[in-house]
């Protein structure tokens, strides 16, 4: 329940659900780290990056299987593989810190708001429903581009305000690799 509450608050904050109204929500957090080795930003970054990664992996796996172009399939397979490693590392940190891992987001928590930054069930539905062919490749490239912009946004926040050196280093690699992926997907979209 605590996880659900925390997640609901994150979703509210991120999706701007509170537009024009004031939301009152119960929230509880685990105790702050005793040794100052990490801070709230580190925790929030990881909790938000976990579902972000999970959706990205699902999108990439679909494309590794269904894309028509070899270069798109190779890129998608490499994205899925690298993000799976990152995901395991992030979950490991959260467990070590005794912090809840944000998972299984309640889809109703953000209905009508287009999802939070990067976890949007409708995006996966579109991809699942698109048969193999040029349309699939174009849609995948466009949707994953939007998704990876969300990852960059999250990682830039962590790089600036996080404290944990390894989490910040991961954020740095996410910024670099996603930015490069966006560029590469842009060239695939153009040709």
């Amino acid at each position, binding site marked *: 329940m605590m996880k659900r509450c925390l997640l609901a*608050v*994150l979703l*509210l*904050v991120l*999706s*701007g659900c*509170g*537009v*024009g*109204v004031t*939301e*009152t*929500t*119960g*929230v*509880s*957090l685990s105790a702050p780290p005793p040794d100052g080795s990490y801070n*709230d930003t580190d925790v*929030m970054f990881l909790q938000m990056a976990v579902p972000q990664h999970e959706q990205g992996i699902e999108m990439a796996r679909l494309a590794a299987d269904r894309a028509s172009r070899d270069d798109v399939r*190779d*890129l998608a*397979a*490499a994205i899925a*593989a*690298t993000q*799976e*490693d990152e995901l395991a590392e992030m979950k490991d940190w959260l467990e070590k810190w005794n912090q809840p891992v944000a998972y299984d987001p309640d889809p109703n928590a953000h209905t*009508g*708001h*287009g*999802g*939070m*930054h990067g976890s949007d069930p*409708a995006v996966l539905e*579109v991809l699942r429903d698109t048969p193999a062919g040029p349309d699939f490749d174009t849609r995948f490239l*466009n949707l994953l*581009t*939007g*998704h990876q*912009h*969300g990852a*960059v*946004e999250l990682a*830039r*926040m962590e790089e600036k*305000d996080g404290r944990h050196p390894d989490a910040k280093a991961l954020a*740095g690699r996410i910024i*670099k*690799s996603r*930015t*490069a*992926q*966006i*560029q*590469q997907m*842009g*060239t695939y*979209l*153009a*040709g």
Partner: protein
Amino acid sequence: MSLKRKMVLFASAATIAPLGLVVLPAGTASAHGYISTPPSRQAQCAQNTVSCGDIKWEPQSVEGPKGLRSCSGGVGRFEELNDDSKPWRATSVGQTVTFTWTFTARHATDNFEYYLGNTKVAEFDGNNQQPPPTLSHTVNLGGASGRQKLLAVWNIGDTPNAFYSCVDLQVGGRAPEAPAPEPPAAEQPASGTWASGTSYPAGSEVTFNGTTYRSLQSHTALPGWEPASTPALWQAE
């Protein structure tokens, strides 16, 4: 409101009342998006077709009050989007053009408007609903010809704001083909040294910081995918 600003709000609220009731202040919509094809000015920044400042990190964030006719949405740090002297690539098109949006978050939409100068050439009603994840509009340019700067405006349904995207077009006739964007510069590996931009088939061997690695799956190397930090792609020998 930026993501960071929201996070700060959240963090400070949590600090003040870790176990109690938290009142979240009202925020603005986090809808974000831009036109990706034909590549808008901010898309060209994100794809490094044109060298840009901050906008290259967040082409989806050109958000300003409704009613502007500006490529930057009035955002000071994105001012370079208004600079017609930058080497924006104009995409060669006919009288009918299909524009595709990339979204990072989809919010209720008032409408989408397309302008050439002060003339509105198209409008698409959003019915105050979320747009679908992939959205394209086919627009007739109304007889325009030559090089044109089209402004697309995404008016959000439940905030006073809109998102702005300028697309450079070369319309019709004898216009030269816009050259295809260059792929990311492929650095030549110096005798087996890992280099981003290089295509590595599964089984390739490289050296990186003095260690030899073998590629586990075919991929093109990217910045941020250095062998030492991507055990999914590279195995140390």
